């Protein structure tokens, strides 16, 4: 269970910066290949999770090009490690995160940013002083979605990093294991309850925080 939390939190935190960057790019960028990027980001939402897991295995597996390169030069190994589970969850949750952030970026009144420019702020300052605080609720919503997705991720995880107790066994895969052995119903039920409680806590926590933010941002 702590492993599941660790995986989900790592997935959420790790995808945060790239998620915001891609959302900004999709919402604001006018460049060739924007449609393509949009499609790629959304792929995990429509592909069967097993396919995503297999694609990850093909890319980040020990003998796969990217996986071997990372292992050799940086000592980063994803295959059959908890980091791999986190990567699988991050990829699966990425479209949800990007969507939520992108919607909030599109809702930002451009004149607020332009006012910042006329008051002497360059693009970087405008982003950190104006845009970022305004899209915080969207970022938060995206993080909750991506966290929830990570807590529930099954197909991609089990395909990519298997189901190794203590290393890559997350809540859903553990529940699955329990249901496969005779007399495991008790364990499965216990973990199901844990899963429900964790998800509700995440939802309430973010709801509380979001409401406070919303009140601060109300025009």
């Amino acid at each position, binding site marked *: 269970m702590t492993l599941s939390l660790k995986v989900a939190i790592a997935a959420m935190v790790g995808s945060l910066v790239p998620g915001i960057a891609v959302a900004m790019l999709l919402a604001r960028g006018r460049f060739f290949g924007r449609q393509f990027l949009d499609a790629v980001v959304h792929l995990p939402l429509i592909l069967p999770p097993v396919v995503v897991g297999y694609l990850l295995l093909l890319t980040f597996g020990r003998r796969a090009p990217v996986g071997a390169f990372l292992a050799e030069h940086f000592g980063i190994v994803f295959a059959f490690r908890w980091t791999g589970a986190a990567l699988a969850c991050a990829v699966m949750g990425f479209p949800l995160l990007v969507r939520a952030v992108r919607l909030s970026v599109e809702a930002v*009144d451009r004149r607020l940013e332009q006012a910042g*420019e*006329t008051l*002497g*702020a360059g693009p970087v*300052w405008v982003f950190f002083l104006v845009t970022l*605080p*305004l899209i915080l609720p969207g970022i938060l919503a995206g993080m909750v979605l991506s966290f929830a997705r990570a807590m529930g991720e099954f197909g991609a995880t089990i395909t990519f990093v298997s189901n190794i107790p203590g290393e890559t066994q997350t809540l859903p895969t553990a529940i699955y294991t329990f249901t496969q052995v005779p007399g495991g119903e008790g364990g499965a039920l216990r973990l199901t309850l844990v899963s429900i409680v964790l998800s509700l806590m995440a939802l309430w926590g973010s709801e509380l925080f979001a409401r406070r933010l919303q009140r*601060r941002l109300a*025009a």
Partner: protein
Amino acid sequence: MANVSIRNIRKSFGPVAIIKGVNVDIEDGEFVILVGPSGCGKSTLLRMIAGLEDITDGEIRIGPRVVNDVPPKDRDIAMVFQSYALYPHMTVAENMAFSLKLKGASQAEQKKRIQDAASSLGLLPLLDRYPRQLSGGQRQRVAMGRAIVRDPQVFLFDEPLSNLDAKLRVQMRTEIKELHQRLKTTTVYVTHDQIEAMTMADKIVVMHDGIVEQIGAPLDLYDRPANLFVAGFIGSPAMNFLDGTLEEGGLRLPSGALLPLDRRPPLQAGAKATYGVRPEHLEIVAAGTAGTIPATVAVVEPTGSDTTVIVKAEGGNLTVVVRDRVSLKPSDPVGLKPMARQTHLFDEHGQRVADA
């Protein structure tokens, strides 16, 4: 402070030309108002001065410097938006401190500058509030305060008063003008409201459909409009227009009445022309008087200080404003006598001919 020079400026959005070659010279310390109907390109021109829109063609200088390729943050301007564009996540004080923080001003200096601006705008009790806790008028002041604190070379205002109620608008007009007299910072101010333009500007630029129709001091535009557009746009109630044909001795109206002209216009007899006269330059006299426009009273609207009389004449309604109280009733026949030297004549292309 700086002068602003706008040279042959053009702007297109895609294939659509919005600004079609505009020249304006704004002196150091001048209060210039861009006025024109909605959609004529005023905001676009202002945003080009601010650097928020690319310049398709032409040149803009602030002071001696060509700013075409200078980003907004380096133009040393401050803009006040119609929507105020206050930061909802910052207090009034933080909003006003925005430009100072970026400049790296010391805490002490920030505090002093904010106090100064806030006290001149009556914002001192509101410094810790958030924009959502303010009324429209207070937000408007905060937006001005944020601009003032920056102490820029040029203030740019885009319809800053159009979201306020009528009474507050009149009050803020005076305040902005006083502010300008105190700070003497070059100001470019956009509005669609010609009364705002008349009351506040040192110089008015009348725009229409992407071009400048006329530039001048408020009363110059009022007394000598260069064309029919300016004549009809400046002044409220609007100038009355009568179409007719020039003859020896005056302008022949379709009704047969002959309007005497003050001067002989440099136009051929038989040329079509439009005669213009402001509502306060028409006198109501007995029906049938020679050289007057025959009409009948339609509506009488007393405002207290003066009375607006709408009359039906051939070719449409005319408006007359009289200072004296009148005892006219609907459908009374009257004659309208234009005051000497207070009339305007426009040729068939709508250009001013000379004082009629």
